[in-house]
């Protein structure tokens, strides 16, 4: 069930009514209701995987009980290994069999594995819960229902943001405040997300990115250039749209999610970029992999550079079993290490230096995203060859160029724009606010292409 669809509108309307009615009359039943809603949401993709989702939730809860507050480190390792094993089987079994076992000359059957939607996100949350309760960074939860609602909560279930237990579980301990629902904030996030997804991302995808990356040999140099820039904008508009809408829908139900994107393409260094892009994943990788597992920057400069590279390569592979993802992570890891070596963490002072740093950062990110998007390295080679080829560029239009420019331009809007709009909207009576939001929603639906493509991060 995708957010920008009629079926989700019906589903969310029913959940909104049921949830707030129960909060008012029978709060004790509300979490059961939310769990049921989460499973209905997930069942639209797969009924079978609902059972698996519950099993992972109960596993996480059980390990949390055994390993809490520094008790039983082996139980923690078994718990984390279980969650990782589950993730690895679905994401990497075929890659392992075909790329390693088959190359060693052993028989390697192609497994019929279907990747469950959102598996990475709920597994990462499960791991963070187990590690945090073991380290006493989060309270252990004795009620399995709360852990299940936390892991399966439908706004973040399919594509994040990755919400930490210490942030979410306390919100389940008391009924949400039915007198303080941030409707304007949620509306701005949802409508802004819809605009990014429906108008910018969908059109860039169908108009230039997908056709060019499918067969670069049929396109001219400017088509390829626009497709590369276009994908960078598309993935931001697609993924940040999902995060914004997830935060908005959670807010309408009285729950707070962390911000996941903070105008990433205005970053002036790679380190700055990772503080702004997919914040919930980059902080997850920082806390659980870079610092806790690898030792962070406490073991000397050479080891720090290795740790950066290892973290980014593993972050790349997390996206899927493909050499292109590995190279994407390696480029980021190498760029972070080089940046650290050159003292790139110091803030540039002059306008020229700021622009130069921004320009370099943006283009490193953009070129890495070309690898991220390409289905294989052969396509990357075709793209590079096409830049020097003499084919005419017929796919570039002013509309696609303007949409790509718009997707970049929104990074340079005031960072507190949402709060400013919210301030204006707060004065409107509810019926007028509803009319403004409804008309804006309609305008967005009219402006975008027909149909809704799945969000890019659903495949991860």
């Amino acid at each position, binding site marked *: 069930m995708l957010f920008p669809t*009629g079926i989700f509108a019906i589903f969310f309307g029913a959940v*909104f009514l049921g949830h707030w009615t129960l909060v008012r009359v029978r709060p004790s039943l509300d979490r059961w209701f939310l769990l049921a809603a989460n499973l209905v949401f997930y069942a639209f993709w797969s009924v079978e995987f609902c059972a698996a989702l519950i099993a992972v939730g109960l596993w996480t809860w059980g390990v949390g009980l055994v390993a809490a507050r520094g008790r039983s480190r082996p139980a923690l390792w078994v718990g984390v290994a279980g969650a990782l094993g589950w993730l690895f089987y679905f994401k990497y079994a075929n890659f392992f069999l075909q790329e390693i076992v088959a190359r060693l000359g052993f028989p390697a059957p192609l497994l019929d594995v279907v990747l469950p939607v959102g598996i990475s996100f709920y597994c990462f949350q499960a791991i963070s819960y187990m590690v945090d309760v073991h380290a006493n960074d989060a309270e252990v939860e004795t009620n399995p229902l709360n852990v299940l609602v936390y892991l399966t909560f439908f706004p973040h279930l399919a594509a994040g943001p990755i919400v930490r237990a210490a*942030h979410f579980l306390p919100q389940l301990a008391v009924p949400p405040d039915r007198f303080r629902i*941030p409707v304007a904030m949620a509306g701005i996030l949802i409508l802004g997300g819809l605009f990014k997804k429906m108008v910018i991302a969908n059109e860039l995808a169908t108009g230039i990115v997908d056709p060019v990356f499918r067969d670069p040999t049929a396109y001219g140099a400017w088509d390829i250039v626009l497709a590369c820039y276009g994908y960078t904008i598309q993935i931001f508009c697609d993924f940040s749209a999902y995060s914004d809408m997830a935060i908005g829908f959670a807010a309408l139900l009285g729950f707070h999610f962390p911000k996941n994107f903070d105008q990433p393409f205005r970053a002036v260094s790679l380190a700055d970029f990772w503080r702004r892009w997919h914040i919930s994943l980059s902080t997850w990788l920082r806390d659980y992999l870079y610092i806790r597992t690898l030792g962070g920057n406490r073991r000397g400069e050479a080891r720090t550079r290795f740790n950066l590279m290892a973290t980014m390569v593993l972050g790349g592979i997390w996206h899927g079993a493909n050499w292109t993802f590995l190279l994407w992570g390696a480029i980021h890891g190498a760029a972070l290490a080089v940046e650290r070596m050159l003292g790139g963490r110091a803030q540039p002072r002059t306008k020229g230096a700021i622009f130069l740093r921004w320009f370099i950062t943006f283009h490193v990110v953009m070129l890495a995203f070309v690898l991220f998007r390409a289905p294989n390295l052969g396509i990357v080679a075709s793209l590079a060859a096409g830049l020097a080829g003499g084919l005419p560029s017929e796919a570039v*239009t002013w509309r696609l160029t303007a949409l790509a420019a718009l997707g970049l331009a929104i990074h340079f809007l005031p960072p507190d724009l949402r709060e400013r709009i*919210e301030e204006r909207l707060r004065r409107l009576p509810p019926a007028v606010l509803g009319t403004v939001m409804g008309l804006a929603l*309609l305008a967005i639906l009219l402006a975008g292409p027909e149909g809704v493509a799945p969000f890019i991060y659903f495949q991860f």
Partner: protein
Amino acid sequence: MQQPWLNPPGTEPKRGVADDFSPATATMNWRLAGLVLAVVWLILLAGRSEAIVDAAYGLPVAPGTETIIAVADAWNDALSAIGIPQALGAVRETLATGR
């Protein structure tokens, strides 16, 4: 922007730096929030009447499907009589300029 709950345990949030967990200002109670959503819903029902008819015809054959189709058709006919789908179609065409 900072998100204090992502800081290492025991770290105090920085002073004077905005975070996205600040209390939202424009809040309302659940009844008024429901009213806002209901108005949004009504506008969607009016603006997407043709899509609703398409969706209704796509439903699997089951008890009640015919009623849903009849209601969707009647709703779309009523709106067509006052020209809403036609006007929105013209807007869509204008917005598609250059596609």
